[in-house]
């Protein structure tokens, strides 16, 4: 018996050693490559502005891949139509999309937050995102199911922002002393901001579940209060011409307003060329948006963009 046990153990050892040797061999190869790559970085001289546009496609792809966005999308059973549309449209462009619902719903995959309270939902969603995804994503984008987002334009906007700095970005509104980001047009947190939020959420003095005031504040304001304790303030996102990138209205509404406010320059005055979000498009209109945004184009108009994004797999409407 002992002899058999012996030969068994010998077998295990031999198997283990073979596997070990094999792995070591492989890994020295890989790290050797890595060593080379970092060696390359150190020897490049300081680049100038024009270089970014002259970067070869491979480098631009690499650059684009460094911005990794996790989409947190808040859905409800009452808005199943919106939820279905979001799944079929813009959320395919997130590096990952997680759907958060108040309760377990069997129709689509979602994380149940087990509460109807909006602020507690927000807390739990951010906590879940941090705990599960902090190592893989450097930006966190919270949206409603009636929001439509162009993730590529979000990434372009985030290009020159270091995720290790605290960023809390969207369409910001001032309410007395507090400046907060409106939820309907989407909220973006860097990993640093999310990390600080995660810690302060556990502090009942600064950031309690029941809310920081005697009366009920909206969840957008509660978030702003908690972040303020960690030293983070809201940033309003605008393009070079001062146009809003995060829109709380839909395109049709914005156009109708522009037709009334500045009829001689409707489109020029309406919306940003690199807009990131719109809000309030019906589920069917989100499909029209996918065509208008990602497909419809005029022949002979060419762009030389600093980033490159490939169309997502398993998709036919973009």
């Amino acid at each position: 018996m002992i002899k058999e046990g012996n030969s068994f153990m010998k077998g295990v050892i031999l198997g283990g050693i073979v596997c070990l040797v094999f792995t070591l061999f492989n890994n020295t190869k890989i790290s050797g490559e890595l060593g080379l790559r970092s060696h390359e970085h150190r020897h490049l001289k300081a680049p100038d502005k024009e270089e970014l546009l002259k970067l070869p496609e491979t480098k631009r792809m690499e650059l684009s891949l460094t911005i990794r966005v996790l989409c947190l999308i808040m859905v409800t059973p009452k808005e199943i139509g919106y939820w279905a549309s979001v799944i079929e449209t813009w959320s395919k462009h997130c590096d990952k999309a997680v759907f958060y619902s108040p309760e377990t719903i069997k129709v689509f995959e979602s994380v149940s937050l087990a509460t109807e309270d909006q602020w507690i939902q927000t807390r739990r969603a951010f906590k879940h995102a941090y705990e599960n995804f902090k190592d893989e994503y450097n930006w966190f984008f919270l949206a409603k199911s009636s929001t439509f987002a162009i993730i590529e334009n979000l990434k372009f906007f985030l290009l020159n922002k270091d995720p290790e700095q605290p960023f809390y970005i969207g369409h910001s509104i001032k309410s007395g002393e507090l400046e907060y980001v409106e939820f309907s047009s989407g909220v973006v947190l860097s990993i640093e901001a999310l990390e600080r939020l995660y810690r302060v959420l556990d502090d009942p003095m600064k950031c309690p579940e029941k809310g920081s005031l005697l009366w009920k504040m909206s969840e957008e304001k509660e978030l702003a209060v908690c972040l303020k304790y960690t030293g983070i303030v809201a940033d309003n996102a605008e393009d070079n011409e001062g146009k809003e990138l995060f829109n709380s209205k839909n395109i049709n509404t914005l156009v109708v307003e522009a037709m009334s406010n500045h009829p001689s320059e409707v489109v020029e005055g309406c919306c940003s060329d690199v807009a990131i979000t719109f809000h309030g498009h019906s589920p069917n209109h989100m499909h029209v948006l996918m065509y208008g945004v990602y497909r419809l184009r005029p022949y002979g108009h060419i762009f030389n963009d600093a980033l490159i994004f490939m169309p997502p797999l398993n998709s036919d409407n973009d």
Partner: protein
Amino acid sequence: MAPPLETTTMFTFQVDGLSAEREGRTVFCLQVSAENTMAIPRSVGSFINFITGIVIGVFICSYFVNKATLHIQRHMQTNYNHRNFHYYHSLVKGMMNCSSKRNQSVADELYNKVRILCWVMTAPKNLETKAKHVKATWGKRCSILLFMSSESNPDFPTIGLETKEGRNQLYWKTIKAFHYVHKRHIDEADWFLKADDDTYIVIDNLRLLLSKYNPNEPVYLGRRFKPFLKQGYMSGGAGYVLSREALTRYVAAFRDKTCNHSSHVEDLALGKCMEILGITPGDSRDNHLRETFLPLTLLSHLIKRHPDPSFWYWKFSYYKATHGPECCSDLAISFHYVSPEMMYVLEYYIYHLHVVGYKYRKSTDFSGPSKTLKQGKDMGKR
């Protein structure tokens, strides 16, 4: 009974691919017994045990290695991204003042080669509510833009065709409009487009399509409908185009009474004249066989749903049509039932809103007239 594991040794290494050192080191964790003797097993039974042991040893080791590799990869990825970010960040700092710039030179080149005269069917009551928005959006991209109305209006300006208004005047207006443009502008353009004041035309895409054809040949392009005429005809609401030669023959046909005002149904009546003249309706689909002239609302085309068999569209569409993404070309040319605000929305999608860096899924082009001959047999199929 297995011998006791007397000693366990943890091997720990570290990967730091970012220092330029050449030695790679790996993180994993393996418990090894201090058993030293490696005697060769004697009996078959122990031989089997030995083999089993090897297999299990390999499995155990692979499991731990796999876990470790994932951990390393993640570690490397975040460090690599971090380092990459700082390298690129220095490139990008201060560069953000450039937004994504549109370069129109190819489109502009085509503007000079393919001259299109657009005439828009309108009415006095529609000038401020509809025609105005055509002028403010796609109209300005035509080489020549004319508004045809029953009455002349020098301020807008519109050309008065001296007809009345109403559905039963539509073909009279069309005949007179084409005669007008032939008389005044036949030498100034290669192509003659008819559109309604609720049609939106993407002129750059129309130019690309027309660049594949010869304006000195009789060409008739638009959204092909099949009923009533063997060779079909082009939908009026989605807009259609005649080449210079086709227009010349059309006008001549009225002079020698080959064609006349055969009915009020403008698009069908014109199609009838084309049939008499032997001018075949062309195929305006792109290289993926997606339609470019879209006679329904965009919403109606794009939403996937079960086709309603009683819907007129299925009976009218000459080539097989679908609801959903395949309905429509990326280089669509015309949209119909476009409200005034939708004119600006389309203008925004097409000429303003840009998805930075996005590589289009399908590269789209037009094959030109030879395609029609090749696909003569499979018209109606996809």
